[in-house]
């Protein structure tokens, strides 16, 4: 079973490098420029949080970085690869092999068991369902699931457990970049912290980068760096504890 997807690009210190990335939705009078020239670098082995007010372009930026949305202008390389130079199918294949997703609403398929949900990226990448589910169960053990919970449907487990399943799903195919959209916003404070602890423990590694979009100031201390975004651009990136704290106070 080929559950570990091989990286399609050579390992570099920089996972993501964007310069002057722009994205506009709509045309003419109704055009909205969501990204106005984003410059951002995400390093391998770090957890970068992307913060900013609603509508500032955070979700658009992670969509571009994850390859689910095409940028209009600027340059952007993810592990040295430029999505705009790939065909639609190549981009999809690249995502399947290199990107993991954690969504705000979890997006677990309600008719699949938790183990089957976690196995989905492996099945998409060509693994046989039985082998994929076996591997998924190993990952689920790491996020604290027992046999009964692995056979449960998503609606039968709590929100925190669902997010742990989503995290397991984002990790199961060993992607090099994980993008998380508001992973704790649907969870209470304690569960949110536990989820972030789990992500730090399991997801952050030397050859993997995490980008977490969040409004939740309570989890800022899990970040290696925090990029603040406003009105379609990165206004600043901080990495010292004091700057984190001052930013936290500012956000509060």
């Amino acid at each position, binding site marked *: 079973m080929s559950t570990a997807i091989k990286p399609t690009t050579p390992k570099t210190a920089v996972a993501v490098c964007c310069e002057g990335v722009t994205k506009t939705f709509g045309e003419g009078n109704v055009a909205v420029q969501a990204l106005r020239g984003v410059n951002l670098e995400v390093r391998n082995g770090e957890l970068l949080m992307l913060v900013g007010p609603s509508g500032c372009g955070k979700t658009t930026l992670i*969509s571009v970085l994850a390859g689910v949305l095409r940028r209009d202008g600027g340059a952007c390389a993810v592990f040295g690869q430029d999505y705009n130079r790939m065909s639609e199918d190549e981009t999809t294949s690249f995502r399947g092999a290199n990107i993991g997703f954690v969504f705000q609403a979890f*997006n677990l398929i309600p008719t699949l068991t938790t183990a089957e949900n976690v196995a989905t990226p492996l099945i998409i990448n060509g693994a046989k369902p039985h082998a994929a589910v076996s591997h998924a169960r190993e990952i689920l053990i790491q996020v604290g699931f027992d046999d009964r919970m692995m056979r449960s449907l998503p609606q039968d487990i709590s929100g925190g457990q669902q997010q742990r399943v989503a995290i397991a799903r984002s990790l199961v195919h060993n992607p090099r970049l994980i993008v998380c959209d508001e992973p704790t916003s649907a969870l209470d404070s304690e569960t949110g912290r536990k989820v972030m602890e789990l992500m730090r423990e399991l997801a952050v590694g030397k050859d993997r980068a995490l980008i977490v979009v969040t409004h939740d100031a309570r989890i800022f201390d899990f970040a290696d760096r925090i990029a603040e975004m406003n009105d379609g651009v990165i206004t600043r990136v901080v990495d010292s504890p004091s700057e984190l704290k001052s930013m936290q106070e500012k956000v509060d």
Partner: protein
Amino acid sequence: MNFIALKMLLGDRAKYIGIVIGLTFASLLITQQLGIFAGIMTRTFSFLSDVGLPDIWVVDPQVKYIDDIRPMRDTMVLRVRGVEGVQWAVPLYKGSLAVRRTDGTYQSCIVIGLDDETLMGGPPGMVTGNLWNLRKSGGVIVDQAGAAGKLAHILPGGKRVPLKVGDEMEINDNWSVVVGICKVTQTFQTNPVIYTTYSSATSFAPSQRLLLSFVTVKAKPGQDLNALCQRIERATGLRAYTRNNFKMVTFLYYLKYTGIPINFLTAVVLGFLVGIAISGQTFYNFTLDNLRYFGTLKAMGAKNGMLLRMILLQALVVGGVGYGLGVGAASAWGLIIGGRTQLAFRLPWHLLVISAVAVLVICLGSAALSIRKVMKLEPAMVFRS
């Protein structure tokens, strides 16, 4: 991905059952109506099917179908016998005569008069009695359904006692006696069928100058039947059909001059539309409900081709299940109801194919709408809450 597609489909029980019920109903309605149509149309030429031995039927040139009797001169039999390539030719009488029942009421019956010497053209199967007993004076053989149904004795309490060998009856005021009970294929008119000899039949029939209904012909071995038909037509001025051609002429007549096809076609189209309306709509709703998950799969690396195959598989699974249940229900209905009543129901493989194609079209039509929606789906939608 088939695994995920099937889990998504079967896991949503309410929608899955809704789609399958819609397709089952469509399949049932289409198959059942086509089956009845086929049964009724087969009955139009059941007499031709039952009289299996002759290769060619010779009739008056004005005859348009098997029940359109235009009597000919008896000498035509001799003229047909004289045509090169004819092994034998015998007369056959067919007419509708009134039979007086024991309670004094009259029942119209189809009377078949067979060649006195050969008894060629007799019933396809005997229940009791013997075909040769027709040679007894006034001897007749009555079909089983008629004997137990429209010709049965009705006792004072209303109980029906089927006709049996030895019972007497009056055909057009002529005495006759039942010498056998036979099986025949149900006719279009559903009147009882009575077999007798040609001479008896023509004596039962009202007096008229011409009485010969058909000349049935057996070709010599190796004859081209169409060429023989042409030779008979040239020699006699009559019309000659091969058995299959006469069946087709009869079939087409009923198709063209009765409202049967349009009535059944309406029901078939209705079934098709019901299938589209219920299943198509439910299947499309099922896809819409799962759009977020299709988007998630797309974001996680599922290509459009994979999603296309998933939707097609889902459509084919519900189609297969719905078709199977529908055809099964239609067959069971035909067997149960057909066995107890005079229901005309036939289910040749052609109808199963037509029904399958109709269900396939419904499924693919439903899937096409869903596929279009999923193909145009932007994977970025997964980040929208």
